[in-house]
């Protein structure tokens, strides 16, 4: 999409255009009712409950609010408010008209939202149930796949389908292929049949192939779903009350400075000691900082596509950071749990961001514990070994600190901590690091422990950093994207890494191939009544 629209990610349920959120005790209903005329940018209609980035931003907002504002909710039913159609998936005209980076970023964000739904089920006892009450195709089925249970209306005509390959010449881009075989354990030959059928699979066959879990009669569908939801709710261990309101974002703790080739993100530590987590609510530093950082990542990814390098800085008192971190970990209740998982997901967003990430650790910074994860997420870390550049008489020196935050609570998509990823397979080193937590690490120690890439002194610092950044900016952005993504995810594959790595890589390739995106390609020909022309050579 060629657009000058600046995309924002702030939404409020009472202003949703495409979703209806209704909370009824421990069951919440999330109903898709897409406003056809409500596309994020002009040029397409969102027919058949198809979605674009705007629809998904609302879904993301809803999933976040359910976790923070509704601790009482144990089951979220995702369904459609329209008759006979659940969701037709991503809007094809939007995809066909979009520039490559827009498509990819859209897929990435939708993937993160789907993963977030699964995360809610796995870690917050908030189980998502898809009540598929009509035709469910492509991304529509991928929404269902992100749910723990899929209930399909048994009206002898509604189907689930992944028709991207036969109809569009692309792949289901939001984890469909991966989840079918990995999560739902559909046999691979049947998955092959399924994903090559434009018309999908219905009824008993869908159950037999494990594409859905249960059939529900059309008559009394809603009541039956409700009953099932209440049953599932009883199995949940989520307990909580007194949700906190996610108030409109204020940018207090995350500063963004956008340049032509690079962006500087500065995360500021807390000014005060932690208070009561629940009383502070969305104002508490940890949650506020996480929300702002999350929003910053999303807006920069979508709106600043040429700023290829992000410089990550922090500013503040490491002791206070660790005190707030302790308040969250020590809370041992639903809110502490939610904040922990939210920060985890935000770090994961950083991990999969296709920008060069460089952490600059300078005097006055607070790369301690949770915030040190930002540096560990970066592709390189530079620590200034000397006084602040603008005050050479100062005694202040940059340090970093490891805490329990670096050893478990914030795993990456590959299931490993960032330290385990950095020192993959080196158990001795990891054991050494574990002994070094909870105290300040100087530049020399940080180098020795392998926690930073380099530690130039104050004489070299500016030149070293300038040369590193300029060198970076001269390289092919595509090559960098590929290289960074490979280096960041060592070790085992998970559903997440497959979706973001393997699947996304194939999709990226297919999106640029003439068979899909050329003037006679399937994506461009879709909806014209003309058939795609394929180059039949297999590559």
């Amino acid at each position, binding site marked *: 999409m060629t657009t000058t629209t600046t995309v924002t990610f702030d939404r409020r349920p009472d202003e949703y255009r495409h979703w209806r959120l209704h909370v009824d005790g421990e069951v919440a209903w999330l109903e898709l009712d897409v406003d056809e005329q409500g596309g994020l940018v002009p040029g397409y209609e969102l027919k058949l409950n198809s979605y674009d980035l705007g629809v998904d931003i609302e879904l993301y907002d809803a999933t976040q609010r359910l976790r923070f504002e509704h601790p009482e909710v144990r089951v979220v039913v995702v369904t459609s408010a329209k008759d006979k159609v659940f969701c037709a998936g991503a809007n094809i005209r939007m995809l066909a008209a979009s520039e490559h980076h827009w498509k990819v970023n859209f897929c990435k964000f939708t993937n993160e939202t789907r993963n977030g739904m699964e995360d809610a089920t796995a870690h917050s006892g908030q189980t998502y149930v898809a009540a598929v009450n009509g035709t469910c195709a492509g991304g529509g089925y991928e929404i269902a796949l992100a749910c723990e249970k899929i209930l399909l209306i*048994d009206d002898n*005509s509604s189907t689930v389908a992944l028709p991207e390959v036969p109809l569009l010449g692309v792949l289901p881009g939001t984890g469909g292929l991966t989840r079918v075989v990995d999560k739902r354990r559909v046999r691979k030959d049947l998955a092959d049949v399924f994903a090559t059928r434009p018309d999908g699979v219905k009824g008993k066959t869908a159950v037999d192939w494990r594409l859905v879990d249960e059939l529900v009669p059309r008559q009394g569908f809603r009541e039956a779903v409700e009953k099932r939801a209440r049953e599932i709710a009883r199995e949940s261990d989520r307990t909580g009350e007194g949700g906190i309101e996610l108030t409109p974002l204020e940018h207090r703790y995350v500063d963004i400075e956008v340049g032509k080739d690079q962006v500087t993100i500065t995360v500021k530590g807390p000014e005060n000691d932690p208070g009561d987590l629940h009383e502070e609510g969305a104002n508490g530093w940890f949650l506020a900082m996480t929300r702002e950082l999350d929003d910053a990542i999303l807006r920069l990814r979508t709106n600043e596509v040429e700023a290829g390098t992000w410089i990550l800085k922090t500013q503040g008192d490491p002791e206070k950071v660790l005190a707030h971190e302790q308040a969250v970990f020590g809370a041992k209740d639903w809110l502490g749990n939610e904040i922990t998982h939210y920060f985890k997901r935000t770090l994961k967003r950083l991990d999969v961001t296709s920008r060069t990430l460089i952490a600059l650790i300078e005097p006055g910074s607070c790369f301690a514990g949770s915030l040190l994860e930002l540096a560990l997420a970066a592709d390189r870390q530079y620590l200034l070994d000397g006084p602040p550049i603008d005050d050479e008489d100062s005694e202040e020196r940059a340090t970093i600190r490891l805490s329990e935050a670096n050893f478990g609570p914030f795993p990456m998509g590959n299931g490993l901590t960032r330290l385990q990823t950095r020192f993959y397979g080196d158990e001795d080193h990891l054991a050494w690091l574990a002994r070094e937590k909870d105290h300040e690490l100087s530049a020399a120690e940080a180098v020795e422990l392998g926690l930073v890439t380099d530690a130039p002194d104050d004489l070299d610092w500016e030149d070293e950093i300038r040369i590193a950044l300029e060198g970076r900016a001269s390289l092919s952005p595509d090559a960098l994207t590929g290289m960074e993504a490979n280096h960041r995810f060592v070790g085992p594959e998970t559903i997440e890494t497959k979706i973001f790595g393997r699947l996304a890589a194939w999709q990226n390739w297919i999106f640029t191939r003439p068979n899909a995106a050329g003037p006679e390609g399937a994506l461009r020909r879709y*909806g*014209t*009544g003309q*058939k795609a022309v394929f180059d039949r050579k297999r590559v």
Partner: protein
Amino acid sequence: MPEKIDYDAKIPNNVNLSEDRRLQRALEGWQPKFMHWWGEMGPTLETQGVYLRTAVSVGREGWAHFDHVNVPDYRWGIFLAERDPDRRIAFGEHQGEPVWQQVPGEYRADLQRLIVIQGDTEPASVEQQKLLGLTAPSLYDLRNLFQVNVEEGRHLWAMVYLLHAYFGREGRDEAEGLLLRNSGSPDAPRILGAFNEETADWLAFYMFTYFTDRDGKYQLGTLKESSFDPLSRTCEFMLKEEAHHMMVGTTGVDRVVIRSAELIREHDTLDIGPHGGIPLDLIQRYINFHYTVSLDLFGSETSTNAANYYTAGLKGRWQETRRRDDHKLTGDARTLERPGGDGTWTTEEMQAILLLNLDLRTEYVADCQTGVKRWNKILSDAGIDHTFRLPHPGFNREVGINSGHHVTPDGTIVDERTWEAGKPKWLPTTEDLTFVRSLMHPVYERGKIASWVAPPRQGINGKPFDYEYVYLT
């Protein structure tokens, strides 16, 4: 391919079923399910024999054989029109190639879908008309009802044959699904909306056979153009049978209008309800309803599915071979009238290939218009100053660009309140339906007819009106 139908087979056919054991077994497996469905969902009235037309060969002569038949013993079978060995694809990207005798793998899913949707409509109307036998206005009409019903059943067989013969196990599953969905069923309704509406009275039946079966004629007409030859030949033969249903509708409405005109003149008032007739404005409301519900069956005015089917050669245009263009339509444009939020109509130019549903609907509208002319001629011949009209295509629509807009029968876009206020003038009200139902008393005596409808000008197969078309118990 024998033109003669093998009537000795368990399933009468002209497709050499006896030589295809697998297919024969499959269809013989489906047959009892069909009979069960007919028993459950078919006509409620028991008869001892109905004067029915049965095809004995598909050629020009003798496809219409008349005799009294015990309805459940009717020999439903599989009849395809004769094959033209030189037939070539007439449109789309395969234009000029020989037609297909087998389903190309590439189009299997699309063809199956087209056949399932067509097949789903055939038994639906039988279900919708289930109770009408209890209130038939004459033996002649009762006979026509049965004729329509058995042929809809036969058309179901036609689609089921294709599913069984060409679509493997999935085709058999779909064929079974055709019997599992039922009109108006809250659990498994028919696929298209119009086939879940009630046909509660005989005026509705005439309107249905005029307007809704006419949609069927046009849909079959486009499938007759299909490059998949067995589908084409099946539909060609179905069209012959369908013509009779249309006759029932056309003459049925004729006869209601004739009777109403008689009563108007006799009592010198348009208010003929108290005299046992159906008032003209009520007939207009029925027209408005059945016409617009049938327009919905053409689908959305702009359709990429229809365009894809066309390019692939699966479904053509009405009388494709008589059209003088390139039969590809990739460069042609057509205009589309679109209702706007501001109450005005705008015209938009679009690629012709995306407007194929509109193209077919336009043919249909022109055809419907001929009936309206007939009925108006009856009125003017009787010296009655009243005309029927087809409402604007934007009126009362649930499908396509007009759905969600409030359009009056004359094409004015109005707000919701004006629409709701006008509705009782435009569409049958509960009172209308109750009134029409109150007239629906069965008349089963030979030569007699109900008060609200005139006898036909001609009987069936040269028989007089007072012929005993149906033997009742």
